[in-house]
């Protein structure tokens, strides 16, 4: 059935609200492609050829492990940034230099599940410098540099599993956080080898505070805080009056370990955990923590050597809240909360109990009063539980089904996604009144307002990131593209403008005005500053050299040839390393490198950069190589040969480019 038209007209009255509720039941979710799109919607998203979008939209790739970049309002896909998964386009994770970015304590892990992009902030406002994103499965956090749109730093999170509530940032990106979704047994091998049925005794959670170096972007774990064994879901930092605090939603306070679908849905209320991170920072500085086992890798991209640098750490600083009263508090929150969102004023914390039929809004001022008055209803595993009524600003009653996540505009309004009833509901934060709602197609997860989780939202749009696509696009077999939907929030009524396909799972996203990012763009890497150990600065420095069974080729590319383009003297059993330097010093002129039989990938080398492809020939013969990125009218001529001889051959090793000067 079609959704009632009254939903798109006028402010909802109480009677209207009751009507809406009836129509918000699951059976009434949108079931057709029909939707009300007004006549000028197309004009509002049209970005004429040769002009730029107003916003960059950074969207998680979900199970693709990557970060996608779209333009808003057009919905054009601009780039997929390789982060936690190997990338066949650029050779990320395949080239010798980039492999280190994907190293972990479990070895080389070239895939992950990325959920939450978060832009770096200055004074509580996104600054266009970096974008953080989490890897869920093998817990990691990455920092993407928005000068290069490349992964600059990846840190592994020890004592963690299912790194979901991350990487949300403090107001000056002093820290990004990582809360473990799964509590797990920690410590040495004997401590970790326990029966799953001993969950309550042996399983612990923790939240990690990761510090990115403001200059280099290199990340390190400043400290972890041990917590009772629950599941952490999402988080957000306080701001303004609540700066210095962090909030994490948690579920499974039942501490179930089987059939959580039922067993972790028993209690009417779970918790939002409030962390006094300023106090934690001070305790860590004062040496109050202890170093506990926690092997983890930190990987960093060195832009001078064009290579990853990998460091292994054996332990991590941990703070135990039992030793430090005032560090952690629990606030009851109905029921199985997902989103945990702080409004732009920093006065209110919105919980979204995905199984609750209301939205609780907590008051930071009341939280502080309750803490001062020790207004608690007891404790949970030693952590004080503040009284729900004492910390509550109020509840949005019966807003819809399955509230998940809330973002804000600059006018005191909140926008909450409702997974079960497939809609976005707009409500006033102070008055706790619903003012508008629109359907989404279908099953919205997160939503995003540009700057909508910061101190100063830019507003203008809300984007729905949907889990189900069904009939929105041409069908492509059982697997359909996922989708995002763009709504205008400029007027009183939200207005659907556009939906566009996305790759992977568009789990969460951030957006920032393009003008804050564009001036930072790197156009090429200066060849003079290239400190790669195998760089060839000009064809004069190209050569081939044998080091035992290794053959190293210092190779250059420029429109439209390789140097050397003829190599002989390679023998079966050799490992050949092509160190390819792109001599171009011009924007948007990468060169590709591919050789027949390469078992890993091809390279795409940016102007002024050096990257290395390892190639192990498998048969005797002459093997062609060529440029994969169309670079000039003579691109097709950009090719060469490598002669491979038997292992016992005496063919001398040489590499050359036969110039017309030499030949004529």
């Amino acid at each position, binding site marked *: 059935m079609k959704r009632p038209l009254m939903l798109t007209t006028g402010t909802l009255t109480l009677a209207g609200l009751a009507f809406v509720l009836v129509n918000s039941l699951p059976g009434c979710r949108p079931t057709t492609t029909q939707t009300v799109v007004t006549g000028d919607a197309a004009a509002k998203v049209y970005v004429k050829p*040769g002009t730029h979008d107003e916003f960059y939209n950074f969207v998680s790739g979900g199970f693709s492990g990557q970060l996608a970049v779209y333009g808003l309002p057009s919905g054009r896909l601009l780039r997929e940034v390789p982060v936690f998964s190997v990338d066949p386009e650029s050779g990320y994770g395949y080239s010798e230099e980039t492999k280190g970015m994907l190293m972990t304590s479990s070895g080389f892990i070239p895939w992950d599940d990325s959920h939450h992009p978060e832009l770096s902030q200055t004074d509580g406002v996104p600054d266009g410098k970096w974008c953080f994103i989490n890897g869920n499965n093998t817990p990691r956090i990455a920092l993407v540099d928005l000068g290069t749109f490349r992964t600059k730093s990846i840190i592994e999170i020890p004592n963690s599993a299912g790194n979901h509530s991350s990487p949300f940032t403090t107001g000056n990106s002093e820290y990004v956080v990582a809360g473990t979704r799964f509590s797990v047994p920690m410590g040495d091998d004997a401590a970790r080898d326990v029966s799953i049925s001993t969950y309550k005794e042996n399983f612990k959670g923790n939240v990690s505070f990761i510090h990115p170096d403001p200059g280099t972007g290199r990340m390190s774990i400043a400290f972890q805080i041990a917590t009772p064994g629950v599941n952490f879901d999402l988080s957000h930092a306080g701001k303004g009056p609540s700066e210095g605090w962090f909030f994490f939603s948690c579920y499974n306070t039942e501490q179930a370990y089987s059939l959580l679908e039922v067993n972790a849905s028993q209690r009417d209320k779970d918790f939002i955990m409030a962390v006094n991170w300023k106090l934690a920072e001070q305790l860590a500085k004062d040496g109050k923590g202890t170093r506990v086992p926690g092997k983890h890798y930190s990987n960093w991209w060195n832009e001078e050597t064009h290579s990853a640098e990998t460091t292994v750490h054996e332990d991590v600083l941990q703070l135990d809240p039992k030793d430090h009263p005032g560090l952690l508090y629990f606030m009851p929150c109905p029921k199985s909360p997902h989103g945990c969102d702080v409004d732009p004023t920093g006065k209110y914390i919105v919980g979204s109990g995905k199984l609750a039929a209301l939205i609780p809004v907590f008051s930071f001022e009341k939280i502080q009063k309750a803490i001062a008055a020790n207004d608690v209803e007891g404790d949970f595993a030693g952590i004080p539980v503040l009284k729900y009524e004492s910390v509550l600003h109020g509840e949005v009653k019966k807003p819809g089904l399955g509230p998940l996540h809330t973002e804000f505009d600059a006018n005191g309004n909140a926008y909450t996604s409702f997974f079960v009833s497939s809609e976005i509901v707009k409500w006033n934060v102070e008055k706790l009144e619903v003012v508008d709602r629109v359907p989404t197609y279908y099953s919205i997860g997160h939503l995003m307002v540009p700057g909508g989780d910061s101190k100063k939202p830019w507003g203008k749009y809300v984007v729905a990131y949907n889990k189900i696509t069904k009939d929105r696009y041409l069908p492509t077999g059982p697997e359909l593209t996922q989708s995002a939907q763009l709504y205008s929030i400029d007027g009183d009524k939200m207005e659907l403008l556009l939906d566009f396909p996305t790759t992977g799972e568009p789990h969460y996203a951030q957006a920032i005005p393009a003008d804050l990012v564009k001036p930072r763009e790197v156009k090429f890497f200066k060849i003079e500053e290239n400190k790669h150990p195998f760089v060839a600065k000009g064809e004069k420095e190209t050569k081939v050299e044998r080091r035992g069974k290794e053959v190293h080729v210092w190779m250059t590319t420029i429109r439209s040839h390789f140097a050397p383009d003829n190599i002989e003297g390679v023998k079966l059993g050799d490992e050949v390393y092509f160190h390819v330097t792109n001599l171009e010093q*011009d*924007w948007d002129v990468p060169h590709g490198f591919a050789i027949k039989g390469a078992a890993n990938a091809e390279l795409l080398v940016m102007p002024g950069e050096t990257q290395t492809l390892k190639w192990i020939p498998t048969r005797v013969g002459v093997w062609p190589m060529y440029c994969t990125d169309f670079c*000039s009218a003579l691109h097709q001529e950009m090719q060469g040969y490598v002669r491979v001889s038997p292992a016992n051959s005496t063919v001398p090793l040489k590499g050359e480019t036969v*110039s017309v000067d030499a030949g004529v």
Partner: protein
Amino acid sequence: MSTSTKKIAIAVMVLSLTAACGGGNDAPSAGPPGAPTLEKESAGGGAGSKAKLLTEADVTLGDIDAGMAEQGKTTYDVKCQACHSMGENRVVGPGWKGITTRRKPEWIMNMIVNTDAMLAEDPEAQRQLEECLVRMPNQNLSMEEARQVLEFMRTL
């Protein structure tokens, strides 16, 4: 800094190098690989305006300055040699031997620092492109580096 490079430096300051956009569009950086990319030039001028190329008055030659020529050779080795031989033969682009007797100094300088504008506007540059069929890359040389390369060319 020699007298001639000082003069060039002043010329750079005086000249407002502006973009030459084919269709007068307002996105000078858009286009396929090899299309005009005039970020440096466009910094000083509005969209659609013609490039202000160096003129005869902007480039003064004196006796060959060996120090500058040596600097020019260093730049040549890294950024130019892949396409230009020091002999007479064309590799990708023309050989450089005797080039300064065939082309005016300001024409050579413009090809180095205003590459895309020259390929868009200058008939001789276009004739050269028809012959080579590879657009000369803008290798982002500074005006001083370009002048040093010119000095190096004079030694060939």
